[in-house]
């Protein structure tokens, strides 16, 4: 059984969802690891879930990055372990410097909860291993700060290195339609998710765990979980 450690900050509110999906839908072992612990308890995969880690009244994730468990996450990632930050988890990874850029407030200045379409981009990462480049996934978002930002130099480098993992797009996979940005939150170059250079750390704003069952209106999120299982099994991928 592949062990998924789900990091639980006091204000995480998608930690239970991630654990449940891993255990009941994906059929592997999911368990919570509290923010104040120091070891990951034999994790194969680390998930940083959505929520409001420490209330996030300051920048999202700014306080969470100092949690004791983050040292263990850092070490795990440095050893090549697959780490996925979802929504708040993505914000924490950028604040922690494990991923480039930062997530700013949505351009419309309001929270957005809705389905979006994202296109699989870039190189294969631990969580997109085996996914068809250019394929379109329907994944829901729910955030107030998902507006990906980095300076142009960084953005160019990310694109050059294939570190842009997901881009918001239309249902048919289009981006950059004139006058109609695909990103609902103003994200630079429609970026919905990025990875580190090595490809074992991925962060994205949409919530794959919310769409792994037909009952909840979609199953595309399941693909990220299946991808990392392939990665763990040594079936291609960046590890």
């Amino acid at each position, binding site marked *: 059984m592949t062990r998924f450690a789900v990091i639980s900050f006091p204000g995480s509110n998608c930690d239970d969802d991630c654990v449940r999906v891993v255990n009941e839908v994906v059929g592997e072992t999911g368990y919570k690891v509290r923010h104040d612990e120091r070891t990951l308890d034999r994790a194969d995969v680390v998930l940083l879930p959505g929520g409001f880690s420490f*209330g996030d009244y300051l920048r999202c994730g700014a306080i969470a990055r100092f949690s004791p468990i983050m040292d263990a996450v850092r070490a795990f990632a440095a050893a090549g372990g697959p780490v996925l930050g979802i929504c708040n988890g993505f914000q924490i990874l950028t604040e922690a410097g494990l991923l480039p850029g930062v997530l700013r407030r949505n351009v419309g200045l309001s929270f957005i909860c809705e389905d979006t379409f994202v296109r699989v981009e870039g190189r294969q990462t631990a969580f997109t291993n085996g996914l068809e480049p250019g394929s379109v996934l329907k994944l829901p978002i729910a955030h107030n700060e998902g507006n990906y930002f980095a300076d142009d130099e960084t953005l160019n480098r990310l694109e050059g290195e294939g570190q842009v993992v997901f881009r918001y797009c239309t249902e048919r996979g289009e981006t950059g339609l004139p006058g109609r940005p695909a990103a609902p939150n103003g994200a630079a170059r429609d970026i919905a998710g990025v990875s580190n250079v090595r490809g074992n750390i991925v962060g994205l704003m949409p919530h794959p765990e919310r769409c792994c069952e037909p009952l909840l209106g979609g199953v595309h999120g399941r693909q990220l979980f299946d991808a990392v299982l392939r990665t763990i099994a040594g079936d291609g991928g960046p590890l």
Partner: protein
Amino acid sequence: MKGRVTVSLRTGVLDVEGKAIGKALTSLGFGGDIDVRVGRVFEIELPESSPEVALSRLKDMAVKLLSNPIMESYRLELVGSAPGAALGTTGT
């Protein structure tokens, strides 16, 4: 010229953000029980005019839009010139 409006919570109003930041600073080793109050600053380009006119314009903005009198008070300053009592006023 430039004006600055600083809006902060009135004393007594719970500052959830300040409280969270104070706690975080403590856990980062900056000492125990750190009192933090958080406010917002608006830096606004104003048309050239006398300080009095500029300040009254700024005050108008603070009252009508930038602050919520139920919970917040504001402080006005003209930037560039030395800030302080002479060119600033406060209100609720």
